């Protein structure tokens, strides 16, 4: 019996490491368990290997050491059932397909039936009402990111991987997306891993923030964010939220102080 790809799954990384061809160590001996249905943010300095970690969880990158399991099985098994979605730093929409076409392509690639009404509801959910037939080139950067998030949600994956999905948009759009996302989140709860540079974004969106060291990535701090949901940016700015933000910042600076400067780490 195949596992239900829509079921939120627990992720276990054991002794996970990645060394690239040139001898660069991106991730070193990492042990991490992510509970089913939780949202976890991975934060750390640029180039610290968080994207590599995400790609190993997604099964897009083979680990050099150790293992990843999703719901007890290797990622390749989850891929086979199209049980996960990735939203990349670049929206990666196919330029010759409309917003709707891009979302439908995800469903077809995942061998899921295309439910027209569900696709429309999804387009509405990310605030792209009326833009279903628009090609990506005619959308703003923020709208493209929303379309990419809608596509990632379309297959109702048990595991959602977001690799700096707001990396390429300007600050205002970023804040808007961060405001909208919690609302979208409540609608579809899955196990979610979010890679981000923004500490406030991490605190706003996650149940748990993992702070990583500069390359090779190791866990420096593991901070729970027990703020109630639904959340809002105001809540993050409140005393309770600010406390969490301070904790993450402290861990980040500590991680940097205790290791070689970022230039040398590149």
């Amino acid at each position, binding site marked *: 019996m195949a596992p239900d790809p829509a079921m939120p799954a627990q992720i276990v990384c054991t002794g996970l490491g990645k060394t690239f061809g040139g001898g660069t160590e991106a991730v070193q001996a990492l042990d991490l368990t992510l509970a089913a249905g939780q949202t976890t943010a991975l934060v750390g300095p640029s180039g610290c290997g968080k994207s590599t970690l995400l790609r190993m969880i997604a099964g*897009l990158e083979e680990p050099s050491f150790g293992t990843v399991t999703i719901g007890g099985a290797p990622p390749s098994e989850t891929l086979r059932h*199209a049980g996960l979605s990735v939203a*990349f730093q*670049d929206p990666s929409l*196919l330029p010759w397909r409309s917003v709707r076409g891009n979302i439908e392509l*995800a469903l077809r*690639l995942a061998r899921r039936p295309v439910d027209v009404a569900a696709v429309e509801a999804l387009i509405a959910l990310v605030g792209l009402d009326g833009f279903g037939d628009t090609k990506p080139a005619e959308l703003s950067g923020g709208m493209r990111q929303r379309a990419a998030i809608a596509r990632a949600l379309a297959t109702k994956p048990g595991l959602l991987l977001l690799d700096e999905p707001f990396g390429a948009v300007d600050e205002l759009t970023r804040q808007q997306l961060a405001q909208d996302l919690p609302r979208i989140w409540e609608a579809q709860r899955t196990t979610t891993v979010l890679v981000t540079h923004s500490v406030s974004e991490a605190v706003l969106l996650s149940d748990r923030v993992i702070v990583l060291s500069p390359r090779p990535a190791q866990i420096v701090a593991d901070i729970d964010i027990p703020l109630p949901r639904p959340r809002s940016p105001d809540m993050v700015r409140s005393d309770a939220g600010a406390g969490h933000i301070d904790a993450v910042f402290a861990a980040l600076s500590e991680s940097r102080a205790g290791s070689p400067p970022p230039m040398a780490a590149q």
Partner: protein
Amino acid sequence: MTVTTAPARPAILQKPVSFAPWISTAILLALWELAGRQLSGTFVLASPSEVLRYLAEEWRMMARALAVTLGNAALGFVFGNLAAIALATLASVWPRTERVVAGLALLVFCLPLVATGPILRVLFGPGDGPQIVLAALAVYYTTLIPLLVGLRAAPATWFDLVRSYGRGRVSALVHVRAMAALPYLFTGLQIAAPAAFLGAMVGEFTGAERGMGVLTVRAIRALDVEMTWALATVATGVAILAYAVIGALARRVLKAPPPVILAAPAPAGARSSALQTGAIVTVLALLAWWGAIRVFDLNPFFAKGPGDVFAALILADDAAETRATLAGALGETLVFLLPGYIAGLLAGAGLAMLLVLMPILAGTAMPLAIALRSVPIVTTAPLVVLLLGRGATGTIVLVAVMVFFPTFVACLHGLRQAPGQIMDVLDSYAAGPVTRLIRVRIPAMLPAFFAAARMAVPASVLAVTVVEWLATGAGVGSLMALSASLSDYDMLWSAVVLVSALSALGYAAVGAVERRILTLYAPEQVA
């Protein structure tokens, strides 16, 4: 001379907005007419009015010949492009084969068409087979190269996206690569359309009953100046028209002009793996050659295998004599080939640089040059021979012209790729146009220049062998013509093998120089 028949809408980089091409066409036509009247009676030049009168009188014959050649060219176009699409698809689904596929394709592209013609003629017997095969051979490479580039022309995350839904290379091909490659396919088809016509004509040069090429050979033999010029005018017109039609189709389908692809990207990878690929390609080519003769059970009198050629060149009693004949002919050919090749490269790069210093001219020249690049120069070979005689000058000029156009277009394109930010930095130091040219534009041009220089090797070999075959009676082209008519198939096959191998080696040698220089000036192109 081919300029005269260029229509005013060759632009693929920009929509036509000016009347400049019309005006320059009119001026050139007038000059041509004037020159024709001055030189009447010298058996050199027919004026446009004489060409028109000839066409009006002989249009039935011309139309019949054109229909035959067009039909063969169209079939060759279809088969050649299908082969290119199949090969490129194979290379993209099974990436390990890409280098070998590209290497084999290059080797076949280096086959001297003029010698392949007679061999195909004896294989097929009378009929249209050789013309169609030659047309296909003339087009598949020009389609394959942009297609190989196009099938990779998608960001890595698009492929990650396909993989993240658990799908593999076939889905990536269908959903991502095929669409991403479409503009590149059109670029290839656009160059292939005139090339197919050229291939069909070369096939007819080497022995056919009907068609434009047959008429051309007849016109040259009879020293019929009007007929020669009329045929070249029609061939040039058809080539430009074919190019324009595909361009228009591309703009309709893509809603954007097709990208300018000049040649395969520089052969990447370590030297050892290049040698390894070369060895694999050689072995596979020899096996295919040997296997084809076995499988089709070809008559050993004219179908010579690798062993026969080896025997003729090394083992036979007269091997030393054969080698001396071939070496002599190759030497004669090189005397024409090298000056023409170098002159074409220098003229192309030089004119491109000159035009960059005069931007107003460049806007008009670029679209015109891109269209003229498509003209099968070889179809004008008879004219060059008429104009400049059967001696060295005519041949060298023809080779130079063949090399000039692609080099010019590539260099102009490359010069315009100069990074804007660096140009701004130089501006901020008030650097003059010459400084900018030397410091920024020329380094930016080098990759395009070398890409053109590589592709020009087989093209110049084709040009020189065609002229030798048709007119000059010297060099390896003539030797191949002579061997074919004397049924000396050992010599013919040996010549084919040597010419292909030398073309491929020349291509590789330019590639080696390219790697050395790009490592200094444009390391990102080599990595």
